[in-house]
Protein backbone atom coordinates (compact mmCIF):
# COMPACT_ATOMS: atom_id res chain seq x y z
CA UNK A 1 0.00 0.00 0.00
CA UNK A 2 1.26 3.47 -0.92
CA UNK A 3 2.33 5.70 1.91
CA UNK A 4 -0.48 8.02 3.01
CA UNK A 5 1.89 10.86 3.62
CA UNK A 6 5.60 11.17 3.06
CA UNK A 7 8.23 12.84 5.15
CA UNK A 8 8.64 15.34 2.30
CA UNK A 9 4.92 16.20 2.44
CA UNK A 10 5.25 16.92 6.13
CA UNK A 11 8.36 19.00 5.56
CA UNK A 12 6.52 21.05 2.91
CA UNK A 13 3.47 21.63 5.10
CA UNK A 14 5.77 22.60 7.98
CA UNK A 15 7.53 25.07 5.72
CA UNK A 16 4.20 26.58 4.60
CA UNK A 17 3.20 26.93 8.26
CA UNK A 18 6.63 28.40 9.07
CA UNK A 19 7.37 25.63 11.58
CA UNK A 20 11.00 24.63 12.04
CA UNK A 21 10.92 20.90 12.70
CA UNK A 22 13.89 18.73 13.62
CA UNK A 23 14.50 15.44 11.81
CA UNK A 24 13.11 13.53 14.78
CA UNK A 25 10.00 15.70 14.81
CA UNK A 26 9.50 15.15 11.09
CA UNK A 27 9.51 11.40 11.69
CA UNK A 28 7.13 11.70 14.62
CA UNK A 29 4.61 13.89 12.79
CA UNK A 30 4.78 11.83 9.62
CA UNK A 31 3.63 8.84 11.66
CA UNK A 32 0.96 10.81 13.53
CA UNK A 33 -0.45 12.46 10.42
CA UNK A 34 -0.58 9.08 8.67
CA UNK A 35 -2.78 7.84 11.53
CA UNK A 36 -5.09 10.84 11.10
CA UNK A 37 -5.38 10.14 7.39
CA UNK A 38 -6.08 6.52 8.11
CA UNK A 39 -8.99 7.59 10.26
CA UNK A 40 -10.25 9.85 7.44
CA UNK A 41 -10.17 6.84 5.14
CA UNK A 42 -12.52 5.04 7.49
CA UNK A 43 -15.02 7.83 6.94
CA UNK A 44 -14.39 7.88 3.20
CA UNK A 45 -15.26 4.19 3.06
CA UNK A 46 -18.85 4.89 4.21
CA UNK A 47 -21.63 5.15 1.65
CA UNK A 48 -22.66 8.80 2.04
CA UNK A 49 -24.47 9.23 -1.27
CA UNK A 50 -27.61 10.43 0.51
CA UNK A 51 -25.86 12.79 2.92
CA UNK A 52 -25.55 16.46 1.95
CA UNK A 53 -22.07 17.96 2.35
CA UNK A 54 -21.68 19.89 5.58
CA UNK A 55 -19.58 23.03 5.86
CA UNK A 56 -20.10 23.50 9.57
CA UNK A 57 -21.13 21.26 12.49
CA UNK A 58 -23.74 23.80 13.64
CA UNK A 59 -26.92 23.47 11.63
CA UNK A 60 -27.31 27.22 11.45
CA UNK A 61 -26.68 29.80 8.78
CA UNK A 62 -27.18 33.42 7.82
CA UNK A 63 -25.81 34.91 10.99
CA UNK A 64 -25.43 38.45 9.73
CA UNK A 65 -24.87 41.82 11.35
CA UNK A 66 -26.31 45.17 10.22
CA UNK A 67 -23.91 47.50 8.39
CA UNK A 68 -23.57 49.94 11.28
CA UNK A 69 -20.29 51.57 12.31
CA UNK A 70 -18.99 50.47 15.70
CA UNK A 71 -16.14 51.65 17.93
CA UNK A 72 -12.55 51.72 16.76
CA UNK A 73 -9.35 51.50 18.72
CA UNK A 74 -7.16 54.39 19.73
CA UNK A 75 -4.24 54.48 17.33
CA UNK A 76 -1.58 55.45 19.85
CA UNK A 77 -2.64 52.63 22.10
CA UNK A 78 -2.56 50.16 19.22
CA UNK A 79 0.83 51.24 17.92
CA UNK A 80 2.29 51.24 21.45
CA UNK A 81 1.65 47.49 21.52
CA UNK A 82 3.58 46.94 18.27
CA UNK A 83 7.30 46.04 18.28
CA UNK A 84 7.95 48.98 15.99
CA UNK A 85 5.92 51.85 14.52
CA UNK A 86 6.60 54.88 12.34
CA UNK A 87 4.41 57.59 10.86
CA UNK A 88 1.20 56.20 12.35
CA UNK A 89 1.90 52.83 10.81
CA UNK A 90 3.26 49.46 11.84
CA UNK A 91 6.89 49.06 10.90
CA UNK A 92 7.70 45.56 9.74
CA UNK A 93 10.79 43.88 8.33
CA UNK A 94 10.92 43.55 4.58
CA UNK A 95 9.77 40.19 3.41
CA UNK A 96 11.65 38.92 0.41
CA UNK A 97 9.32 37.42 -2.13
CA UNK A 98 5.65 37.39 -1.40
CA UNK A 99 3.08 34.99 -0.08
CA UNK A 100 2.90 32.13 0.61
Amino acid sequence: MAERITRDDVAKVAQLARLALTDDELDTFTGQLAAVLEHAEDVAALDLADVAPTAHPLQLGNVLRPDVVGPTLDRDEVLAAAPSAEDGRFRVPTILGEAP
Partner: protein
Amino acid sequence: MTAPTAPTTIDSDEVFTVEAGGTTFELVCGLEVHAELATATKMFSGAPNRFGDEPNTNVDPVTLGLPGTLPVVNERAIELAIRFGLAVGAEIRPSVFARKNYFYPDMPKDFQISQYDQPIVVDGSIELPGGHVVGLERAHLEEDTGKSTHVGGDGRITGAEYSLVDYNRAGVPLLEIVSRPHVRTPEQARQYVAELRAVLVAAGVSDGKMEEGSLRVDANVSVRPVGTDALGTRCEIKNLNSLRSLGRAIEYEARRQADLIAAGERVEQQTRHWDEDSGRTSKMRSKEEADDYRYFPEPDLLPVTPDPAWIDAIGAALPPMPAARRRAVADAAGVVLPDETVALIVERGQDSQALDAITAGADAARVLVHVSQNLAGEGGASVAPDRLAALIALETSGALTATQAKAVLAEMVGSDATPEEIAAAKGFEAMDTGALEAMVDEVIAAHPDEWETFRTGDDKARGKLTGFFVGQVMRASRGQADGKAVTDLLRRRSGA
Protein backbone atom coordinates in the same frame (compact mmCIF):
# COMPACT_ATOMS: atom_id res chain seq x y z
CA MET B 1 -7.43 32.83 -6.66
CA THR B 2 -9.48 30.75 -8.98
CA ALA B 3 -10.93 27.35 -8.30
CA PRO B 4 -9.91 24.85 -10.94
CA THR B 5 -12.37 24.60 -13.79
CA ALA B 6 -12.15 23.64 -17.45
CA PRO B 7 -12.10 27.01 -19.17
CA THR B 8 -13.31 27.31 -22.71
CA THR B 9 -12.54 30.25 -24.93
CA ILE B 10 -15.16 31.95 -27.02
CA ASP B 11 -15.39 33.07 -30.61
CA SER B 12 -14.88 36.74 -31.13
CA ASP B 13 -15.16 38.80 -34.28
CA GLU B 14 -11.76 40.19 -33.47
CA VAL B 15 -8.72 38.42 -32.08
CA PHE B 16 -5.41 40.10 -31.26
CA THR B 17 -2.52 38.30 -32.92
CA VAL B 18 1.26 38.47 -32.70
CA GLU B 19 3.78 37.18 -35.23
CA ALA B 20 6.87 35.44 -33.88
CA GLY B 21 9.31 33.14 -35.66
CA GLY B 22 6.98 32.65 -38.60
CA THR B 23 4.05 31.60 -36.42
CA THR B 24 0.95 33.65 -35.71
CA PHE B 25 -0.10 33.53 -32.06
CA GLU B 26 -3.48 34.64 -30.72
CA LEU B 27 -4.33 36.19 -27.40
CA VAL B 28 -6.44 34.46 -24.78
CA CYS B 29 -7.12 36.56 -21.71
CA GLY B 30 -9.26 36.41 -18.59
CA LEU B 31 -9.61 39.20 -16.06
CA GLU B 32 -9.91 39.20 -12.28
CA VAL B 33 -11.40 42.36 -10.89
CA HIS B 34 -11.42 43.18 -7.18
CA ALA B 35 -14.18 45.65 -6.37
CA GLU B 36 -14.41 47.26 -2.93
CA LEU B 37 -18.01 47.24 -1.82
CA ALA B 38 -19.89 50.43 -0.96
CA THR B 39 -20.62 49.47 2.63
CA ALA B 40 -20.33 51.66 5.72
CA THR B 41 -18.32 49.04 7.61
CA LYS B 42 -15.90 46.19 7.04
CA MET B 43 -16.71 42.67 5.90
CA PHE B 44 -16.53 41.08 9.35
CA SER B 45 -16.61 43.94 11.85
CA GLY B 46 -18.04 47.39 12.51
CA ALA B 47 -14.84 49.37 11.80
CA PRO B 48 -15.52 52.02 9.13
CA ASN B 49 -14.91 51.28 5.46
CA ARG B 50 -13.65 54.70 4.47
CA PHE B 51 -10.91 55.73 2.05
CA GLY B 52 -8.42 58.50 2.75
CA ASP B 53 -8.49 58.60 6.55
CA GLU B 54 -5.37 58.86 8.75
CA PRO B 55 -3.51 55.51 8.79
CA ASN B 56 -4.68 52.92 11.33
CA THR B 57 -7.63 54.95 12.58
CA ASN B 58 -10.30 52.65 11.10
CA VAL B 59 -9.18 49.58 13.01
CA ASP B 60 -10.84 47.51 15.69
CA PRO B 61 -9.81 44.24 17.39
CA VAL B 62 -11.19 42.12 14.52
CA THR B 63 -9.29 44.17 11.92
CA LEU B 64 -6.05 43.58 13.83
CA GLY B 65 -6.74 39.89 14.39
CA LEU B 66 -6.34 40.28 18.13
CA PRO B 67 -6.69 37.06 20.15
CA GLY B 68 -10.26 36.05 20.92
CA THR B 69 -11.90 38.17 18.25
CA LEU B 70 -14.54 36.62 16.00
CA PRO B 71 -15.80 37.72 12.59
CA VAL B 72 -19.49 38.43 11.90
CA VAL B 73 -20.68 38.79 8.29
CA ASN B 74 -21.87 42.21 7.13
CA GLU B 75 -25.43 41.81 5.81
CA ARG B 76 -25.03 44.72 3.41
CA ALA B 77 -22.00 43.07 1.77
CA ILE B 78 -24.12 39.99 1.07
CA GLU B 79 -26.84 42.18 -0.38
CA LEU B 80 -24.38 43.99 -2.67
CA ALA B 81 -22.89 40.70 -3.88
CA ILE B 82 -26.42 39.50 -4.69
CA ARG B 83 -27.15 42.77 -6.48
CA PHE B 84 -24.07 42.31 -8.62
CA GLY B 85 -24.93 38.69 -9.37
CA LEU B 86 -28.44 39.58 -10.49
CA ALA B 87 -27.16 42.53 -12.53
CA VAL B 88 -24.97 40.18 -14.61
CA GLY B 89 -27.56 37.43 -14.93
CA ALA B 90 -25.70 35.07 -12.59
CA GLU B 91 -26.91 32.44 -10.20
CA ILE B 92 -26.90 33.24 -6.47
CA ARG B 93 -25.67 30.21 -4.56
CA PRO B 94 -25.45 29.22 -0.92
CA SER B 95 -21.88 30.10 -0.03
CA VAL B 96 -19.21 29.15 2.45
CA PHE B 97 -16.32 31.24 3.72
CA ALA B 98 -12.84 29.71 3.76
CA ARG B 99 -9.47 30.54 5.23
CA LYS B 100 -6.67 31.28 2.82
CA ASN B 101 -3.51 30.82 4.87
CA TYR B 102 -0.37 32.81 4.26
CA PHE B 103 2.12 34.84 6.20
CA TYR B 104 2.43 38.37 5.05
CA PRO B 105 2.18 41.52 7.15
CA ASP B 106 -0.77 42.92 5.18
CA MET B 107 -2.99 40.38 6.99
CA PRO B 108 -2.36 40.55 10.73
CA LYS B 109 -4.17 37.31 11.58
CA ASP B 110 -2.03 35.37 9.06
CA PHE B 111 -4.97 34.30 6.94
CA GLN B 112 -7.49 35.99 4.72
CA ILE B 113 -11.16 35.06 4.88
CA SER B 114 -12.37 34.42 1.35
CA GLN B 115 -14.70 32.07 -0.44
CA TYR B 116 -13.22 29.14 -2.26
CA ASP B 117 -15.18 26.26 -3.73
CA GLN B 118 -18.61 27.67 -2.84
CA PRO B 119 -18.73 31.30 -4.03
CA ILE B 120 -21.90 33.36 -3.74
CA VAL B 121 -22.14 34.32 -7.43
CA VAL B 122 -21.70 31.82 -10.25
CA ASP B 123 -21.89 32.00 -14.02
CA GLY B 124 -22.98 35.39 -15.37
CA SER B 125 -21.98 37.50 -18.34
CA ILE B 126 -21.18 41.05 -19.35
CA GLU B 127 -22.20 42.43 -22.74
CA LEU B 128 -19.68 44.98 -24.01
CA PRO B 129 -20.76 48.15 -25.84
CA GLY B 130 -18.99 46.76 -28.92
CA GLY B 131 -21.28 43.72 -28.86
CA HIS B 132 -18.82 41.07 -27.57
CA VAL B 133 -20.06 39.04 -24.61
CA VAL B 134 -17.64 38.01 -21.85
CA GLY B 135 -18.69 35.15 -19.59
CA LEU B 136 -18.19 35.40 -15.84
CA GLU B 137 -17.10 32.29 -14.04
CA ARG B 138 -17.78 33.47 -10.51
CA ALA B 139 -17.68 36.32 -8.02
CA HIS B 140 -16.81 35.69 -4.42
CA LEU B 141 -16.68 37.74 -1.24
CA GLU B 142 -13.49 38.27 0.71
CA GLU B 143 -11.75 40.81 2.89
CA ASP B 144 -9.21 43.30 1.58
CA THR B 145 -5.67 43.39 2.95
CA GLY B 146 -3.83 46.25 4.63
CA LYS B 147 -1.73 48.66 2.62
CA SER B 148 2.05 48.30 2.74
CA THR B 149 4.42 51.11 1.90
CA HIS B 150 7.92 49.94 1.14
CA VAL B 151 10.61 52.27 2.38
CA GLY B 152 14.02 52.47 0.72
CA GLY B 153 15.05 50.89 -2.58
CA ASP B 154 12.81 51.77 -5.52
CA GLY B 155 9.57 51.72 -3.53
CA ARG B 156 8.87 48.17 -4.59
CA ILE B 157 9.34 45.28 -2.25
CA THR B 158 12.64 44.27 -3.82
CA GLY B 159 15.41 46.31 -2.29
CA ALA B 160 13.21 47.94 0.35
CA GLU B 161 14.73 48.37 3.80
CA TYR B 162 11.49 47.95 5.70
CA SER B 163 7.76 48.32 5.21
CA LEU B 164 5.05 50.37 6.91
CA VAL B 165 1.57 48.95 7.20
CA ASP B 166 -1.77 50.73 7.44
CA TYR B 167 -4.69 48.46 8.33
CA ASN B 168 -7.51 50.87 7.45
CA ARG B 169 -8.13 48.85 4.29
CA ALA B 170 -7.73 45.46 6.01
CA GLY B 171 -11.13 43.82 6.24
CA VAL B 172 -12.87 46.07 3.72
CA PRO B 173 -15.40 43.93 1.80
CA LEU B 174 -14.23 42.89 -1.63
CA LEU B 175 -15.99 41.16 -4.46
CA GLU B 176 -13.50 39.29 -6.65
CA ILE B 177 -15.05 38.95 -10.08
CA VAL B 178 -13.46 36.30 -12.29
CA SER B 179 -14.14 36.31 -16.03
CA ARG B 180 -13.83 33.35 -18.32
CA PRO B 181 -10.93 33.57 -20.81
CA HIS B 182 -13.23 35.28 -23.28
CA VAL B 183 -11.23 38.46 -23.72
CA ARG B 184 -9.47 38.29 -27.09
CA THR B 185 -8.13 41.82 -27.70
CA PRO B 186 -6.62 44.55 -25.50
CA GLU B 187 -9.56 46.76 -26.51
CA GLN B 188 -12.04 44.17 -25.27
CA ALA B 189 -10.18 44.09 -21.95
CA ARG B 190 -10.55 47.85 -21.61
CA GLN B 191 -14.21 47.70 -22.62
CA TYR B 192 -14.83 44.87 -20.18
CA VAL B 193 -13.42 46.76 -17.22
CA ALA B 194 -15.23 49.96 -18.21
CA GLU B 195 -18.51 48.08 -18.61
CA LEU B 196 -18.03 46.12 -15.39
CA ARG B 197 -17.38 49.39 -13.62
CA ALA B 198 -20.56 50.89 -15.13
CA VAL B 199 -22.54 47.86 -13.92
CA LEU B 200 -21.04 48.07 -10.41
CA VAL B 201 -21.83 51.77 -10.19
CA ALA B 202 -25.35 51.43 -11.68
CA ALA B 203 -26.16 48.63 -9.24
CA GLY B 204 -24.76 50.66 -6.32
CA VAL B 205 -22.30 47.86 -5.51
CA SER B 206 -19.08 49.87 -5.61
CA ASP B 207 -17.98 53.43 -6.31
CA GLY B 208 -15.70 51.92 -8.97
CA LYS B 209 -12.90 54.44 -8.46
CA MET B 210 -9.77 52.96 -9.99
CA GLU B 211 -7.68 55.90 -8.78
CA GLU B 212 -8.63 55.13 -5.16
CA GLY B 213 -8.09 51.41 -5.58
CA SER B 214 -11.81 50.61 -5.32
CA LEU B 215 -11.41 48.67 -8.55
CA ARG B 216 -8.25 46.64 -9.11
CA VAL B 217 -7.60 44.52 -12.15
CA ASP B 218 -5.34 41.53 -12.72
CA ALA B 219 -5.04 40.06 -16.21
CA ASN B 220 -4.40 36.39 -16.93
CA VAL B 221 -2.65 36.37 -20.28
CA SER B 222 -1.70 33.45 -22.49
CA VAL B 223 -1.09 32.92 -26.20
CA ARG B 224 -1.46 29.96 -28.53
CA PRO B 225 -0.83 29.38 -32.22
CA VAL B 226 -3.82 30.46 -34.31
CA GLY B 227 -5.97 27.46 -35.15
CA THR B 228 -5.16 25.49 -31.98
CA ASP B 229 -7.55 24.92 -29.09
CA ALA B 230 -5.35 24.06 -26.12
CA LEU B 231 -4.74 26.95 -23.76
CA GLY B 232 -1.14 28.10 -23.31
CA THR B 233 0.50 28.62 -19.93
CA ARG B 234 -0.77 31.86 -18.46
CA CYS B 235 0.87 34.64 -16.51
CA GLU B 236 -1.02 36.87 -14.13
CA ILE B 237 -0.24 40.56 -14.57
CA LYS B 238 -0.64 42.86 -11.57
CA ASN B 239 -0.34 46.60 -10.95
CA LEU B 240 -2.74 47.61 -13.71
CA ASN B 241 -3.89 50.97 -12.41
CA SER B 242 -5.69 52.33 -15.44
CA LEU B 243 -7.48 51.14 -18.56
CA ARG B 244 -4.49 52.38 -20.54
CA SER B 245 -2.08 50.26 -18.48
CA LEU B 246 -4.37 47.27 -18.89
CA GLY B 247 -4.35 47.40 -22.68
CA ARG B 248 -0.63 48.08 -22.94
CA ALA B 249 0.32 45.35 -20.47
CA ILE B 250 -1.75 42.69 -22.23
CA GLU B 251 -0.24 43.60 -25.57
CA TYR B 252 3.31 43.57 -24.17
CA GLU B 253 2.81 40.28 -22.37
CA ALA B 254 1.33 38.55 -25.43
CA ARG B 255 4.38 39.58 -27.45
CA ARG B 256 6.76 38.46 -24.72
CA GLN B 257 5.17 35.02 -24.52
CA ALA B 258 5.00 34.60 -28.30
CA ASP B 259 8.70 35.49 -28.60
CA LEU B 260 9.58 32.98 -25.86
CA ILE B 261 7.70 30.16 -27.55
CA ALA B 262 9.09 31.05 -30.97
CA ALA B 263 12.61 30.90 -29.47
CA GLY B 264 11.92 27.35 -28.33
CA GLU B 265 11.53 28.30 -24.69
CA ARG B 266 8.73 27.60 -22.28
CA VAL B 267 6.37 30.11 -20.69
CA GLU B 268 6.62 29.66 -16.93
CA GLN B 269 3.45 30.22 -14.93
CA GLN B 270 4.23 33.41 -13.04
CA THR B 271 2.79 36.45 -11.37
CA ARG B 272 4.24 39.47 -13.15
CA HIS B 273 4.37 43.16 -12.32
CA TRP B 274 3.51 45.82 -14.93
CA ASP B 275 5.78 48.85 -14.97
CA GLU B 276 3.98 51.74 -16.64
CA ASP B 277 7.14 53.80 -17.17
CA SER B 278 9.20 51.14 -18.92
CA GLY B 279 6.16 49.56 -20.58
CA ARG B 280 7.25 46.08 -19.51
CA THR B 281 6.19 43.27 -17.21
CA SER B 282 8.67 41.60 -14.87
CA LYS B 283 8.51 38.50 -12.71
CA MET B 284 7.22 38.96 -9.16
CA ARG B 285 7.04 35.30 -8.19
CA SER B 286 6.39 31.86 -9.54
CA LYS B 287 2.70 31.21 -9.45
CA GLU B 288 1.72 29.49 -6.23
CA GLU B 289 -0.46 26.43 -6.19
CA ALA B 290 -3.88 26.74 -4.53
CA ASP B 291 -2.78 23.86 -2.26
CA ASP B 292 -0.07 26.08 -0.80
CA TYR B 293 -2.74 28.31 0.71
CA ARG B 294 -4.22 25.34 2.60
CA TYR B 295 -7.79 26.54 2.17
CA PHE B 296 -10.27 25.10 4.62
CA PRO B 297 -13.81 26.14 5.64
CA GLU B 298 -13.72 29.05 8.09
CA PRO B 299 -14.76 27.49 11.41
CA ASP B 300 -15.81 30.85 12.90
CA LEU B 301 -18.41 31.58 10.21
CA LEU B 302 -21.58 29.79 9.22
CA PRO B 303 -22.68 29.24 5.63
CA VAL B 304 -24.74 32.00 4.01
CA THR B 305 -27.91 30.83 2.30
CA PRO B 306 -29.85 33.90 1.20
CA ASP B 307 -33.62 33.58 1.42
CA PRO B 308 -35.10 33.42 -2.13
CA ALA B 309 -37.64 36.10 -1.17
CA TRP B 310 -34.77 38.41 -0.22
CA ILE B 311 -33.03 37.72 -3.53
CA ASP B 312 -36.27 38.46 -5.42
CA ALA B 313 -36.74 41.72 -3.55
CA ILE B 314 -33.16 42.79 -4.31
CA GLY B 315 -33.68 41.94 -7.98
CA ALA B 316 -36.93 43.88 -8.16
CA ALA B 317 -35.21 47.01 -6.84
CA LEU B 318 -32.33 46.88 -9.35
CA PRO B 319 -32.21 49.72 -11.88
CA PRO B 320 -31.71 48.75 -15.55
CA MET B 321 -28.10 47.92 -16.45
CA PRO B 322 -26.16 49.70 -19.24
CA ALA B 323 -26.66 46.91 -21.81
CA ALA B 324 -30.45 47.04 -21.32
CA ARG B 325 -30.37 50.83 -21.49
CA ARG B 326 -28.43 50.71 -24.77
CA ARG B 327 -31.06 48.35 -26.15
CA ALA B 328 -33.88 50.67 -25.04
CA VAL B 329 -32.34 53.67 -26.80
CA ALA B 330 -31.51 51.65 -29.92
CA ASP B 331 -35.06 50.25 -30.10
CA ALA B 332 -36.65 53.67 -29.66
CA ALA B 333 -34.35 55.23 -32.25
CA GLY B 334 -34.51 52.35 -34.71
CA VAL B 335 -30.73 51.91 -34.57
CA VAL B 336 -28.91 48.58 -34.87
CA LEU B 337 -26.43 47.75 -32.07
CA PRO B 338 -23.51 47.99 -31.58
CA ASP B 339 -23.70 51.73 -32.08
CA GLU B 340 -21.10 54.15 -30.75
CA THR B 341 -23.47 57.08 -30.36
CA VAL B 342 -25.94 55.02 -28.35
CA ALA B 343 -23.10 53.63 -26.20
CA LEU B 344 -21.84 57.15 -25.54
CA ILE B 345 -25.30 58.45 -24.60
CA VAL B 346 -25.79 55.62 -22.09
CA GLU B 347 -22.26 55.97 -20.74
CA ARG B 348 -22.95 59.64 -20.01
CA GLY B 349 -26.32 58.88 -18.46
CA GLN B 350 -28.15 60.90 -21.14
CA ASP B 351 -30.39 58.02 -22.19
CA SER B 352 -33.53 59.11 -20.37
CA GLN B 353 -33.20 62.55 -21.94
CA ALA B 354 -32.90 61.00 -25.41
CA LEU B 355 -35.77 58.57 -24.82
CA ASP B 356 -38.06 61.30 -23.49
CA ALA B 357 -37.42 63.52 -26.52
CA ILE B 358 -38.13 60.61 -28.89
CA THR B 359 -41.30 59.82 -26.94
CA ALA B 360 -42.28 63.51 -27.26
CA GLY B 361 -42.32 62.93 -31.01
CA ALA B 362 -38.92 64.27 -32.11
CA ASP B 363 -37.04 62.74 -35.03
CA ALA B 364 -34.88 60.04 -33.43
CA ALA B 365 -31.76 60.49 -35.57
CA ARG B 366 -31.68 64.21 -34.78
CA VAL B 367 -32.25 63.48 -31.07
CA LEU B 368 -29.19 61.20 -30.98
CA VAL B 369 -27.06 63.84 -32.70
CA HIS B 370 -28.14 66.70 -30.45
CA VAL B 371 -27.89 64.73 -27.23
CA SER B 372 -24.54 63.10 -28.00
CA GLN B 373 -22.83 66.06 -29.67
CA ASN B 374 -24.54 69.28 -28.65
CA LEU B 375 -25.56 68.54 -25.08
CA ALA B 376 -22.28 66.93 -24.07
CA GLY B 377 -20.97 69.87 -22.07
CA GLU B 378 -19.54 69.75 -18.58
CA GLY B 379 -22.01 68.59 -16.00
CA GLY B 380 -24.28 67.12 -18.68
CA ALA B 381 -26.22 70.08 -20.02
CA SER B 382 -29.86 69.20 -20.43
CA VAL B 383 -33.00 70.60 -21.99
CA ALA B 384 -36.54 69.50 -21.15
CA PRO B 385 -37.71 66.78 -23.58
CA ASP B 386 -40.67 68.76 -24.92
CA ARG B 387 -38.40 71.73 -25.64
CA LEU B 388 -35.82 69.55 -27.37
CA ALA B 389 -38.64 67.99 -29.37
CA ALA B 390 -39.93 71.46 -30.31
CA LEU B 391 -36.49 72.46 -31.57
CA ILE B 392 -36.13 69.28 -33.59
CA ALA B 393 -39.60 69.84 -35.06
CA LEU B 394 -38.35 73.18 -36.44
CA GLU B 395 -35.35 71.42 -37.91
CA THR B 396 -37.42 68.59 -39.38
CA SER B 397 -39.83 71.05 -41.02
CA GLY B 398 -36.91 72.86 -42.61
CA ALA B 399 -37.45 76.06 -40.61
CA LEU B 400 -33.94 75.69 -39.16
CA THR B 401 -30.82 74.15 -40.64
CA ALA B 402 -28.75 71.68 -38.60
CA THR B 403 -26.18 74.40 -37.91
CA GLN B 404 -28.84 76.88 -36.82
CA ALA B 405 -30.54 74.28 -34.63
CA LYS B 406 -27.23 73.64 -32.87
CA ALA B 407 -26.80 77.35 -32.17
CA VAL B 408 -30.37 77.64 -30.88
CA LEU B 409 -29.93 74.57 -28.66
CA ALA B 410 -26.80 76.08 -27.10
CA GLU B 411 -28.92 79.06 -25.97
CA MET B 412 -31.81 76.91 -24.79
CA VAL B 413 -29.61 75.40 -22.08
CA GLY B 414 -30.18 77.59 -19.04
CA SER B 415 -32.87 79.69 -20.71
CA ASP B 416 -36.67 79.56 -20.65
CA ALA B 417 -37.12 81.05 -24.11
CA THR B 418 -38.76 78.85 -26.74
CA PRO B 419 -36.67 77.68 -29.70
CA GLU B 420 -38.80 79.92 -31.96
CA GLU B 421 -38.01 82.98 -29.83
CA ILE B 422 -34.28 82.21 -29.80
CA ALA B 423 -34.23 81.58 -33.56
CA ALA B 424 -36.03 84.87 -34.19
CA ALA B 425 -33.67 86.75 -31.87
CA LYS B 426 -30.72 85.32 -33.79
CA GLY B 427 -32.27 86.36 -37.09
CA PHE B 428 -32.62 82.78 -38.31
CA GLU B 429 -35.37 82.69 -40.89
CA ALA B 430 -36.55 79.74 -42.80
CA MET B 431 -35.65 80.11 -46.42
CA ASP B 432 -38.67 79.90 -48.58
CA THR B 433 -38.38 76.95 -50.98
CA GLY B 434 -38.82 79.21 -54.00
CA ALA B 435 -36.01 81.51 -52.84
CA LEU B 436 -33.72 78.55 -52.24
CA GLU B 437 -34.45 77.13 -55.72
CA ALA B 438 -33.71 80.48 -57.29
CA MET B 439 -30.45 80.68 -55.39
CA VAL B 440 -29.40 77.17 -56.48
CA ASP B 441 -30.24 77.99 -60.10
CA GLU B 442 -28.12 81.15 -59.92
CA VAL B 443 -25.15 79.21 -58.59
CA ILE B 444 -25.55 76.58 -61.32
CA ALA B 445 -25.71 79.26 -64.00
CA ALA B 446 -22.55 80.88 -62.63
CA HIS B 447 -20.55 77.63 -62.83
CA PRO B 448 -21.45 75.90 -66.11
CA ASP B 449 -18.27 73.76 -66.35
CA GLU B 450 -18.61 72.40 -62.84
CA TRP B 451 -22.27 71.76 -63.45
CA GLU B 452 -21.52 69.77 -66.62
CA THR B 453 -19.02 67.61 -64.72
CA PHE B 454 -21.50 67.21 -61.88
CA ARG B 455 -24.26 66.11 -64.25
CA THR B 456 -22.19 63.61 -66.23
CA GLY B 457 -19.40 62.62 -63.84
CA ASP B 458 -18.94 59.45 -61.80
CA ASP B 459 -19.92 59.17 -58.12
CA LYS B 460 -16.56 60.45 -56.96
CA ALA B 461 -16.72 63.57 -59.08
CA ARG B 462 -20.34 64.15 -58.06
CA GLY B 463 -19.48 63.79 -54.40
CA LYS B 464 -16.69 66.32 -54.68
CA LEU B 465 -18.78 68.82 -56.62
CA THR B 466 -21.77 68.44 -54.28
CA GLY B 467 -19.57 69.93 -51.60
CA PHE B 468 -18.56 72.72 -53.95
CA PHE B 469 -22.15 73.66 -54.89
CA VAL B 470 -23.48 73.42 -51.34
CA GLY B 471 -20.64 75.68 -50.25
CA GLN B 472 -21.51 78.24 -52.95
CA VAL B 473 -25.20 78.25 -51.96
CA MET B 474 -24.27 78.56 -48.27
CA ARG B 475 -22.11 81.56 -49.04
CA ALA B 476 -24.85 83.16 -51.14
CA SER B 477 -27.41 82.56 -48.36
CA ARG B 478 -25.00 83.59 -45.58
CA GLY B 479 -25.42 80.22 -43.95
CA GLN B 480 -29.20 80.26 -43.91
CA ALA B 481 -29.69 77.47 -46.43
CA ASP B 482 -30.27 73.90 -45.33
CA GLY B 483 -27.44 71.78 -46.71
CA LYS B 484 -29.60 68.70 -47.11
CA ALA B 485 -32.30 70.64 -49.02
CA VAL B 486 -29.60 72.03 -51.34
CA THR B 487 -28.21 68.54 -51.99
CA ASP B 488 -31.70 67.27 -52.81
CA LEU B 489 -32.30 70.18 -55.20
CA LEU B 490 -28.98 69.64 -56.97
CA ARG B 491 -29.84 65.99 -57.48
CA ARG B 492 -33.26 66.86 -58.88
CA ARG B 493 -31.87 69.54 -61.20
CA SER B 494 -29.29 67.13 -62.59
CA GLY B 495 -32.07 64.69 -63.40
CA ALA B 496 -30.65 61.93 -61.19
